[in-house]
């Protein structure tokens, strides 16, 4: 597969943009005109070539730039990686998962050779080469998830399964939609979902937890989550809210198409073999409204979803500019019925 990595920024001058190919493969999350929470979990099976779910993990044109942005965030705040002491087995499980997926599916970019426990990993796009002993932390420059988490797109949360519950006991989090790892590390499934409105009423999280407790080795699952961001900013953490918060009020009817981005998370869950834990990957995709409107079908669909979005959800997702967005999108909506499905055309 030929991948051209772009040089772009996700902060300050915000030079990020999507190529036409990236726009076309964007994981548009709305199959219907209305949106409400559901346990929209499905098997993480491979889909057609070129799609974001063609492989176990998706590496795209933004790979090098995203990794660079991650490094900036981690350098400023090393606590974006936290690991409780009992999670070392899970970290090794996750490292194995990530390295094997990347080297199997993108062999031109990443290689992994094993001689018993002696592993050799090379990362061509980032120019890295590392020999280490699998299972021996002293042979890596930093803890396993800290090491490999910087070389894969998206956030990674490792969950310990115990007492019929899941606990977020280890994670690398640099592109989250406004939740704090420092606060949430060590929390149980229901605790970390605490702030989400309507969670109790719909029973969605109880059902999701029950389902995830029986997640099987070899059968990962996935779902999509979404919100919106002003400017293509990866680091929308509460920690740095003083930096990106002020940007939210700079949206005007003139710049809304360019500044406001749909932010979609492809969330994938994998059962981990040795630790019996779970790896929760949160892969973030950004697209500006203008780019989205390349496909009128998408513009229409998102117009309708946002127009009728439950106020509690709009508030929780921080969409203070929603009215401007809905106005801007309205010109694409002729009101004609739209079939279900997330395809662009």
């Amino acid at each position, binding site marked *: 597969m030929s991948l051209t990595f772009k040089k772009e920024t996700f902060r300050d001058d915000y030079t990020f943009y999507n190529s036409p190919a990236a726009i076309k493969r964007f994981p548009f999350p709305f199959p219907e005109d209305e949106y409400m929470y559901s346990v929209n979990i499905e098997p993480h099976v491979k889909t057609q070539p070129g799609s974001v779910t063609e492989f176990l993990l998706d590496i795209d044109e933004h790979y090098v730039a995203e990794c660079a942005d991650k490094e900036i965030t981690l350098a400023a705040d090393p606590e974006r990686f936290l690991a409780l002491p009992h999670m070392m087995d899970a970290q090794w499980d996750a490292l194995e998962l990530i390295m094997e997926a990347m080297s199997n599916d993108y062999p031109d970019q990443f290689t992994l050779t094993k001689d018993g426990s002696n592993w050799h990993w090379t990362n061509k796009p980032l120019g890295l080469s590392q020999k280490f002993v699998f299972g021996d932390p002293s042979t890596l420059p930093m803890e396993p998830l800290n090491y490999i988490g910087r070389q894969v797109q998206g956030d990674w949360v490792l969950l310990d399964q115990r007492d019929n519950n899941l606990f977020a006991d280890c994670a690398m989090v640099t592109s989250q939609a406004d939740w*704090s790892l*420092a606060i949430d590390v060590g929390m149980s499934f229901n605790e970390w979902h*605490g*702030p989400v409105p309507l969670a109790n009423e719909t029973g969605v999280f109880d059902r999701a937890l029950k389902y995830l407790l029986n997640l099987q080795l070899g059968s990962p699952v996935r779902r999509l989550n979404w919100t919106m961001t002003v400017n293509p900013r990866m680091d929308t953490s509460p920690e740095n809210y*003083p930096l990106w918060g002020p940007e939210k009020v700079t949206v005007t009817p003139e710049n809304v198409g360019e500044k406001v981005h749909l932010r979609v998370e492809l969330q994938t869950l994998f059962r981990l073999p040795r630790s019996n834990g779970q790896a929760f990957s949160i892969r973030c995709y950004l697209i500006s409204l203008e780019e989205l409107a390349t496909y009128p079908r998408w513009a229409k669909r998102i117009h309708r979803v946002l127009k009728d979005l439950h106020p509690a959800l709009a508030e929780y997702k921080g969409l203070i500019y929603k009215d401007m967005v809905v106005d801007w999108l309205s010109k694409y909506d002729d009101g004609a019925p739209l079939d279900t499905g997330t395809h662009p055309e």
Partner: protein
Amino acid sequence: MDRQYWIRSKPVYTSLMWHEKATAHCVIAAGDGGMEVLKLLQQKYPAQPVTGFFAKNQKTLKDYSEVISRLAPDEFSVFANEDAAIDSLRNFLPNCYMGTRFYVAGSEAFIWSVAHELANFGVQDDDINKQLCGTLARSVYCVHCKTVTHDVTHNIVECSGCQRNLFVRDHFSRRLGGYMGLMIDAEEPGNVPPIEEVYP
């Protein structure tokens, strides 16, 4: 002030009641938690041994140490402050056996300090009887500068570390023993909503 739904991360506290099935009982209380100790002592006394730690606290109105010492002199030790009580507890725990039931009463900050000590010995916080006594004041963890500001009774507080105006969310971290504090006026600097006492 926070959204009108119950946040699942907020701990739920309950009155202390002796467990019928136990190998031993260990009670740790501070300040206004002394009242909760007295309520325990009014219940049918357990058959198994009881060991108690009571810390005096300057901030409380009533000093329960005298009554507790009089009612349960063999079981309870009194300490001048919370740190001393926790130090003593730390030395006691290696001698405890599985089947020891734990009871904690005091401010929220005290409760979770004790919970952390117990966690070092593999006691999970769900298994600790916890009752919040006296003040509802919250410890606030500023996500921006990572400083903890203690004894916060209002919905908004100036961070003791970075001086930002923080809105105190009800989202509670057991690990930190505190609530999430987030800058309230990042979007419109200076536009701070009314500051109200919500957790006296």
